[in-house]
């Protein structure tokens, strides 16, 4: 197999050949072109969709600039989250501390925008210069009578996963605050969907059709008041397990709310998500509604997929995504399109996740944790992938190599969740794989020449 950094050898394996358990959860090896981000990034992406909250980034300007409206987390109402607020710490503040600036910024912002709550993100240097962010938040909270929540997201304090955890801790402080608004006994919270391209709305609609009340979405199209009463839902349904399981566990311990882990990508996983939730309530009406919903959606979807499948049968895919749960669903979804997964990796998978990936992929599939572009491009070549599924930094690598690409990350333009998401996914993959542009790629032209030569001799 391709040359790999010594320290990373155990983070890559070939299914069927290598028997060791994949190492994971490690900080990226220093000096690798890691595709991973930091603690702050993890917190920021999780909390960002809460649209009526104020998100203030306490640190130098960069962290605010790079996260200004870069995820398409949609809101059906307020859009305060799409603004970028920063204390823009300068040298003086680094020397003398940024607490005064933070206080003044918070007061000014709360007076101007009257948000329902405020999140204050600590970036790397806040951890070093020793600002007492907790104290400033507590003071402003007392004075302005809204929750002002510090998010301990100093970039160096771990991996993106630790950022998810810091975000969960902040959100958790909002829960359990509204004891009076009536909530149905058939009710859930949607955890871990961020309403990219409007996906939360699709999922919410399915639950509505099943007769289930969605109390809150944490955090897609999120609202502070909904989160305040989220503790009264009967069940937490957790997607993107990497980011939100921690919150679900806290809510279970504190409020006794059980949780289920689900995925909304692909036909099987989407259907079982709905059936799992229905079986939890075990109500005949809900059961029937769920069956009807799945039947009508799937029977409408399958003929469309068959059309795409004809062209995609036998093509090979490489997957490199953030969370491993998404990777599971993608492997299965690609099978529906007749495509084999020959490379699959994630930024934040656990060792159990990778064991499961071994089960659902074929022998010879490369499985990797925290890949870098050089490795990825070599795996792709080695396994002859026709498609790469990844995020912003992977896209140009695929395109330079002359293979198709599907963004399954922040920059997805179409909803990929739910049954209609599966249809969009198939359409997008099909469009990219079968695009005429690849015909003109020098690599393909050379391959064509080779093939013709072979035929002649």
């Amino acid at each position, binding site marked *: 197999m391709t040359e790999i950094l010594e320290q990373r050898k155990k983070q890559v394996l070939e299914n069927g050949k290598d028997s060791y358990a994949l190492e994971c959860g490690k900080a990226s090896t220093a000096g690798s072109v890691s595709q991973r981000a930091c603690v702050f990034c993890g917190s920021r992406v999780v909390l960002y969709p809460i649209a009526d909250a104020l998100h203030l980034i306490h640190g130098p300007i960069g962290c605010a600039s790079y996260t200004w409206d870069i995820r398409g987390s949609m809101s059906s109402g307020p859009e305060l989250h799409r603004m970028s607020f920063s204390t823009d710490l300068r*040298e003086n503040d680094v020397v003398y501390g940024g607490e005064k600036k933070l206080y003044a910024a918070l007061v000014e912002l709360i007076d101007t925008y009257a948000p329902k709550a405020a999140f204050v993100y600590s970036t790397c240097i806040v951890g070093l210069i020793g600002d007492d962010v907790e104290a400033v938040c507590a003071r402003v909270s007392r004075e302005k009578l809204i929750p002002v929540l510090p998010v301990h997201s100093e970039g160096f304090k771990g991996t993106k996963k630790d950022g998810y955890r810091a975000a969960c801790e902040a959100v958790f402080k909002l829960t359990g605050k509204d004891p009076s608004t009536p909530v149905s006994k058939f009710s859930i919270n949607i955890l871990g969907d961020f309403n990219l391209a409007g996906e939360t709305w699709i999922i919410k609609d399915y639950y509505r059709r099943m007769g289930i009340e969605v109390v809150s979405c944490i955090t897609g199209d999120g609202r502070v008041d909904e989160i305040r009463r989220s503790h009264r839902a009967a069940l937490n349904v957790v997607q993107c397990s990497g980011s939100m399981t921690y919150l679900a566990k806290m809510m279970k311990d504190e409020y006794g709310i059980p949780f289920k882990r689900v995925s909304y990508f692909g036909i099987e996983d989407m259907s079982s998500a709905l059936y799992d939730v229905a079986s939890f309530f075990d109500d005949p009406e809900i059961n029937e509604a769920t069956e009807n919903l799945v039947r009508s959606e799937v029977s409408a979807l399958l003929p469309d997929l068959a059309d795409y499948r004809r062209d995609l049968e036998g093509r090979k895919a490489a997957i490199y995504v953030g969370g491993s749960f998404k990777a599971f669903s993608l492997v299965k979804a690609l099978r529906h399109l007749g495509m084999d997964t020959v490379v699959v990796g994630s930024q934040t998978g656990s060792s159990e996740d990778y064991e499961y990936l071994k089960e659902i992929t074929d022998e010879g599939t490369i499985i990797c944790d925290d890949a870098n572009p050089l490795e990825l491009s070599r795996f792709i070549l080695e396994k002859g992938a026709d498609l790469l599924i990844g995020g912003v930094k992977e896209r140009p690598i695929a395109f330079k*190599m002359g293979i198709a690409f599907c963004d399954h990350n922040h920059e997805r333009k179409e909803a990929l969740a739910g049954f209609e998401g599966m249809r969009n996914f198939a359409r997008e993959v099909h469009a990219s794989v079968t695009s005429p542009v690849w015909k003109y790629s020098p690599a393909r032209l050379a391959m064509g020449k080779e093939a013709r030569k072979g035929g002649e001799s």
Partner: protein
Amino acid sequence: MLLRHTPKEVAVRSALTINPAKTCQPVGAMYAALGVHKCLPHSHGSQGCCAYHRSALTRHYKDPVMATTSSFTEGASVFGGQANILEAIQNIFNLYNPDIVAVHTTCLSEVIGDDLTQILNKAAAEGKIPAGKKVIHASTPSFKGSHVTGYSNMVASFVQHFSENTGKKIKQINLVPTFVEPSDMSEIKHLAESMGVKYVMLPDTSDVVNGPMDGKFRMYPKGGTTLEQIRSMGDSIRSIALGRVGSMAAAKLLDTKCKVPCEILDLPIGIKATDEFVDAMRNAAGVSVPESLMLERGQYLDVMVDMNQYTAGKKVSLVGDPDLLVGMAAFCAENDMKVLHVVSGTAPGPKFERRIKELCGDDVIVKTGAQADMFFFHQLVQNDRPDIVFGNTYCKYICRDEDIPLIRIGFPIYDRIGHSYFPVTGYRGGLRLLEKVLDTVMDRQDRDAKEEKFELVM
């Protein structure tokens, strides 16, 4: 109304930046380092910094952007990042085999106080840097300056580490462009080549971040200034720096360190600044201006004259990086457009405001540095309603809300292509800019004209 949150009244803010019109130093340093051949930028800080900068540059250029990180952990932030970078250097050379590693710092490593000179000396002494390979660094704390400062610091660092005065002059001139697109770097080279001037340009991101699709992923694309070229800059007869804020540091350093005299010019945007650049090269290299450039100049001037009635009196607002703003202000003034506002998150010093006022007159509103952000810029636009806004992608919120056309220029541009391939500098760049302005103005006129005033011939 995405920006319904922007009140029209301009209030004084002291502690707060809303919707920044700048970003931090390291991304500029990373971009500059990409403009050196077989150089791998390295971010000495948390791995998020590196991921964000790579994402930002990838979104802007739609090309792979390679850089490595020291991946700081909690331990590193207590005990310093020396162990991380030593490990990183070894891994980088083992796996990616660059010729040069260009380390830039981050707010984190700066506050910790890592002494990179000492650490890198140690790495060399311990044999961690293979023979013939180089590791250099630039100090780029995020809490000072902006991405333009970071770019400038990294370019100067290349000069500091590599350029030598060997005592044997080479009949070549140094060209040091400020933070501009690869297309502009190509255009600047085109001007020099047309005049038959031998030159070294540092940095040169053309053929790096606007590379062709050829079926291969390349860790190190074809373009970029070579190490040999950077060395030879110390023996050049003259340096011409284009864009004071981003390029002056390197050019001045070539002067003090290697005794290469320098000229600091504005970015060659618009006819006069391009003339001045051409003239500077003519003087420095003792060549004459060829017919081909006179033709390019003449064609641009011809369109300026032909279409002046459509640009005259148009009100414009500019936001972006200082060097680009000076160029754009000149371009607008030459075409008789009225510049209302000039805003930059980067604080370029008092000369900047003077220069802008020289070009646009005294009633232009100039604001830079703290609180010169998109929020403030939006308030200006709301109050004075220009005909055109020039700025980066983030202006689209403002322009959509106010129904004012936006011409994208600067960094970042996440939502259009073109900047990678078509310049705004030189005579041809001027023509392209003017075409953009005319398309914008005339499309509006066609859209808004009363039926009886709707014109076929314009």
